[in-house]
């Protein structure tokens, strides 16, 4: 009788015991490993996971003296304010448009660079130019901001000097919001094309040399070889890179936008992305509620997009999926 009653109970107990024995056994066997991974886990928890609690601010009416947890709830008011003011849609659109243009140009340029650098026979020339093209990655955006000022400012900018020298009228670029799309695109490519080209060069180097030999034997000239072998072979790399960029489509490069645009108010409507908008709102109006709502909106949407994109990438090539 006792045995029958104990039967199911002891089975569950056994299962639970084996689970905790697993962890305990792992700890007993490998506790140095746990200790070694502890620092980064603690740092991650304190610096990245705990601050996520601040996202609650999106739903609260923040009062400084009450802190995050003491302030009263305000439901979806902050979100409503973000979108009804029209700002929400505008900065979202800006972010998407800029990321799209920037991705296409910088990746396109990177592919072009990679193909030329890999296929050209003058190796010393390509080494030098590759170094030059990769250099911008090392320069902080503050210096780039200086460049932009150097070139485009009205009184002393190099652009206006050049225009005056050829007899044309100087332009005040800072009052022409439409032009900045192209300026930002140019500087974004300037900074990232070299960096991205390294990835494509690695992919091109992975192309099976036998394929190339076969093409040469069949009499393909270099253009045909590039079009029919090199490009199709790196298509997987291209698609994965593009997909990864798409996954980040709602994240603007704050450093780039902030340094290039600075505080020129006329340009805000055309060039504000979610990140710069959040920062500006934070520093000028101090409305933590709305800025939190914008950030939460961005983080959640980004997460959803990356998850979808990753599933797509995993279907194409298991190895390259993020998770």
């Amino acid at each position, binding site marked *: 009788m006792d045995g029958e009653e104990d039967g199911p109970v002891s089975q569950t107990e056994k299962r639970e015991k084996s689970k905790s024995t697993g962890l305990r056994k792992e700890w007993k066997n490998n506790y140095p490993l746990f200790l070694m*991974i502890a620092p*980064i886990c603690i*740092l*991650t928890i304190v610096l990245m996971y705990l601050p996520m609690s601040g996202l609650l601010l999106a739903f609260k009416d923040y009062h400084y003296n009450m802190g995050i947890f003491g302030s009263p709830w305000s439901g979806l008011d902050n979100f409503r304010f973000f979108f009804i003011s029209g700002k929400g849609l505008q900065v979202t659109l800006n972010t998407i448009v800029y990321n799209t243009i920037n991705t296409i140009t910088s990746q396109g340029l990177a592919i072009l660079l990679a193909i030329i650098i890999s296929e050209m026979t003058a190796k010393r020339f390509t080494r030098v130019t590759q*170094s030059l093209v990769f250099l911008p990655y090392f320069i902080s955006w503050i210096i780039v901001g200086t460049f932009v000022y150097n070139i485009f400012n009205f*009184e002393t900018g190099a652009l206006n000097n050049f225009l005056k020298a050829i007899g044309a009228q100087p332009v005040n670029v800072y009052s022409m919001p439409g032009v900045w799309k192209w300026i930002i695109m140019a500087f974004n490519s300037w900074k990232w094309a070299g960096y991205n080209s*390294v990835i494509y060069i690695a992919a091109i180097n992975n192309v099976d040399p036998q394929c190339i030999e076969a093409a040469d034997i069949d009499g393909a000239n*270099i253009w045909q070889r590039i079009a029919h072998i090199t490009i199709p072979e790196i298509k997987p790399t291209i698609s994965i890179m593009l997909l990864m960029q798409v996954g980040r489509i709602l994240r603007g490069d704050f450093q780039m936008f902030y340094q290039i645009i600075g505080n020129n108010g006329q340009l805000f409507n055309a060039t504000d992305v979610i990140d710069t908008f959040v920062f500006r709102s934070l520093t000028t109006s101090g409305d933590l509620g709305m800025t939190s709502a914008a950030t939460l909106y961005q983080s959640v949407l980004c997460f959803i997009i990356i*998850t979808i994109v990753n599933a797509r990438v995993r279907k194409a090539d298991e190895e390259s999926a993020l998770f």
Partner: protein
Amino acid sequence: MQNSNVMRKKASRIKNPPATVAFNWVGVILLTIMSVFCLLPFILLISGSLTSEEAIVRDGFSLIPHEFSTEAYKLLFRYPQTILRAYGVTVFITVMGTTLALLVISMAAYVLCRKSFRYRNQFSFFLYFTTLFNGGMVSTYVFFIRYLHLKDSLWALILPLMVNVFYLLIMRSFMSSIPETIFESCKIDGAGEFRIYFQFALPLVKSGLATVTLFIALDYWNDWYNAMLYMTSREKFPLQYMLYDMLASTEALSQLASSANVSMVDIPGQSLRMAMAVVATGPIILVYPFVQKYFEKGITIGSVKG
């Protein structure tokens, strides 16, 4: 003898097929254009720093200085307190941050590459999730300032850049190339994990350590974002942010003027700013040729994983 000479000459004059020649020309033109575009901003910067202030105000920035003058640099080096202080801060956080980050990251990478560790994947995902979703600027800012009391502390510049999961994964890739059998035989010989890590794992991934060190050091050197968010006292500004402060506010410039006992009017404002930018980014450009290949290797390894 003559025949072989003739043959050697003929062999060295085998021409490339016309398509290749055309391609090479296209390549040369395109690469030259792109390289020039990459160089142009730097030339403007250096030229601006070596031009006299009057020439800038009168003629603007140009590729070659209209009136050569080292006035800006003279001022900078005669009263270098601001720049030296900023350099000191940057060097400190770079050295401190890179060392700590390297230790923390390489230890974790070691753990994650040990196939005998049961919870590898769980820890991986736990760490990796932060790249997919995070609290964002606002939550992090509020949390750091209010709950961690990091306002105006140098740790606010060091800590955020230590938790870089991307570099952790690169490090793990490097360490995964060490066969597990080496670790197993070490354990059989009675070595503890720490000993294996310090005596075996680290020496075997020297080039990986070099690569990740350079990446992290560059991040620290160029960081201005954290300084902008958290630092309030001018003495604690790192190099890039001090430069930004100088460029963006006349107040900072006037403080420099008063510390140099020069009146604001006499300060070569424009060329001084350019000179500061040159000095701020000079070290990076000087070190660049030596470290370029490490970065290229790191990017390649990082992209192979995805």
